[in-house]
C-alpha cells in the first residue's frame, strides 16, 4: 500500500466527526451541571449558589476557557460539515421517504442555529445583564446583600414573551440532543450492534431529562408557582 500523507484530524471527515462528538459531549456535561445549579431556584437557593459559584473564580474562568473553544469548534465544524453535505447531495427525490433518519437528525444545523442565537440572548440577559438592566442582579441586592440573581430570573420569566422564547429555544436544544447525544457515541466508536438500541434510547432519554429539567423553570415561574 503506498505511503501517503493523510489529512489531519481537523480536515478529515471522520476526524471532524470525532471533534463534533467530543465538544458536543463536553457541552452536554455543561448543560447538566448548569441545570443542577439552576434548580436551586426551587429552594430559594439561587442567590446563595450564585454567590458561592463566583467565589470560585479560577473554576469559573477555567470552565469558560475550556467551554468557549469547544463551542467555537463545534459551531465551526458543524457549519462546515453541513455546507459540504448540502453540496454532496444537492437534491432529494421526488418522493420523500425517510427510513431511519428523524426530524431531529435532519435539522441539526437549524436546531444548532436556534441554540446559538438563544445563547447570545441568554448571555446578554443573565450574564452581561444588558437586556433588562433595571432588574440586573449586579444592580439589585437581596435581603442578605447578595446580587439578586433569583429576582432577575423571575422578573424576566414572568413575561409570557420571554418565557416563550426560553421554552421555544429549549425545544431546539431537545431536538439537537435527541440526535446528538446518541450520535456522539457512534462517532466515538463507542457502539456496536448489541449496544446500539440502548444507546439510541439512552441518548433520547438524556435529551428528554435535560429538556424537562430546564423547561420547568420558565413554566413554573410564568404560572406563578415559583416566586423566588
Amino acid at each position, binding site marked *: 500500500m503506498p505511503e501517503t500523507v*493523510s489529512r489531519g484530524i481537523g480536515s478529515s*471527515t471522520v476526524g471532524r466527526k470525532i471533534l463534533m462528538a467530543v465538544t458536543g459531549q463536553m457541552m452536554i456535561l455543561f448543560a447538566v451541571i448548569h441545570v443542577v445549579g439552576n434548580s436551586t431556584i426551587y429552594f430559594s437557593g439561587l442567590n446563595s449558589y450564585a454567590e458561592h459559584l463566583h467565589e470560585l473564580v479560577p473554576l469559573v474562568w477555567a470552565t469558560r476557557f475550556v467551554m468557549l473553544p469547544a463551542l467555537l469548534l463545534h459551531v465551526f465544524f458543524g457549519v462546515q460539515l453541513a455546507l459540504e*453535505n448540502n453540496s454532496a447531495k*444537492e437534491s432529494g*427525490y421526488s418522493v420523500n*421517504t425517510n427510513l431511519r433518519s428523524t426530524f431531529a437528525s*435532519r435539522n441539526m444545523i437549524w436546531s444548532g442555529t436556534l441554540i446559538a442565537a438563544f445563547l447570545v440572548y441568554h448571555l446578554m440577559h443573565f450574564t452581561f445583564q444588558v437586556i433588562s438592566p433595571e432588574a440586573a442582579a449586579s444592580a439589585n441586592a437581596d435581603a442578605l446583600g447578595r446580587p439578586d440573581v433569583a429576582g432577575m430570573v423571575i422578573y424576566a420569566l414572568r413575561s409570557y414573551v420571554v418565557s416563550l422564547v426560553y421554552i421555544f429555544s429549549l425545544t431546539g436544544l431537545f431536538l439537537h440532543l435527541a440526535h446528538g447525544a446518541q450520535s456522539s457515541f457512534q462517532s466515538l466508536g463507542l457502539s456496536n450492534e448489541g449496544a446500539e438500541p440502548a444507546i439510541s434510547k439512552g441518548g433520547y432519554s438524556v435529551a428528554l431529562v435535560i429538556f424537562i429539567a430546564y423547561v420547568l423553570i420558565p413554566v413554573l415561574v410564568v404560572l406563578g408557582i415559583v416566586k423566588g
Partner: protein
Amino acid sequence: MDLTLMVWRQKSADAPGKLDQYAAKGISREMSFLEMLDVVNEGIVKAGGDPIAFDHDCREGICGTCSQVINGVPHGIEERTTVCQLHMRHFKDGDTIYIEPWHGKAFPVVRDLIVDRSALDRLIQSGGYVSVHTGGVPDANAILIPKGDADTAMDAAECIGCGACVAACPNGSAMLFVAAKVTQLASLPQGRVEASERVRGMIDKMSDEGFGNCSNHYECQAACPKGVKVSFIAKLNREYMKSWF
C-alpha cells in the same frame, strides 16, 4: 395489472433531466421490477422512442449493478432486496411508481437511471485491499482466526458495492461502504498489517471524491440490500482513532 411510471429521463451528465410519464399495462405479479421495465422498454422501442437506460447484470441480487430509487427508496421499500429481486407483487394495480437514479455529487448521471459509480472503485483502490506476495499457496490453517472475527469479516464482506447507502444518505456519504471494507479487512490478521494506511487512505479519498460526511442518520443501513450494519461505522471510527497511535 396496470401501472403509471414516472421515470427520470436524462440524455447525458450535462443535459437537464426530467420525469416522464409511461403507462405499464398488463404487468404480471410474478415479474421482477426489471422485467416490468423490459416490457415497458419494448413498447417504447416499438413506438420509435428511446428505451429507458438502466444498469443491470446478474438479476439475482448479488452483483450490485442495478441501481434505481423507487418511490424515494434505493432498491425500493422491500427490506434487504435489490431492484432485480423486487417483484411486482409488492405493488397494486393502478399504482404510480417514481423511478429515479442514485443522487449524489460523487455519482454523476450517465444516462436516465444509470450513474457513474467508479468513485467506489477508486475508494477500493485507495486502500480496500491487502498486499500479499504471490507464490506458493499458504496452508489453509496456517493462520488461525477466531470464529467471531471470521463472522464479523463475513458480515462486512456482504457488501455488493451497489451504492444504495450513498443514494439513501441525506449527506451523500459513503461511510457504510468504506466501513464495510475496513471492518472486513481489519477483522482478519492478513488485513491488520495495513489497517492504519487503509482506514486513513479510504477516509481521505471519500472526501476527495465528493462524498459527504456521515452524521449518523442510519438511512444507509435501512436501504442496504445486504443488511450491512452501521455498527461497522462505529468500528471504522475506532480504526481511525487507532491509526493515530
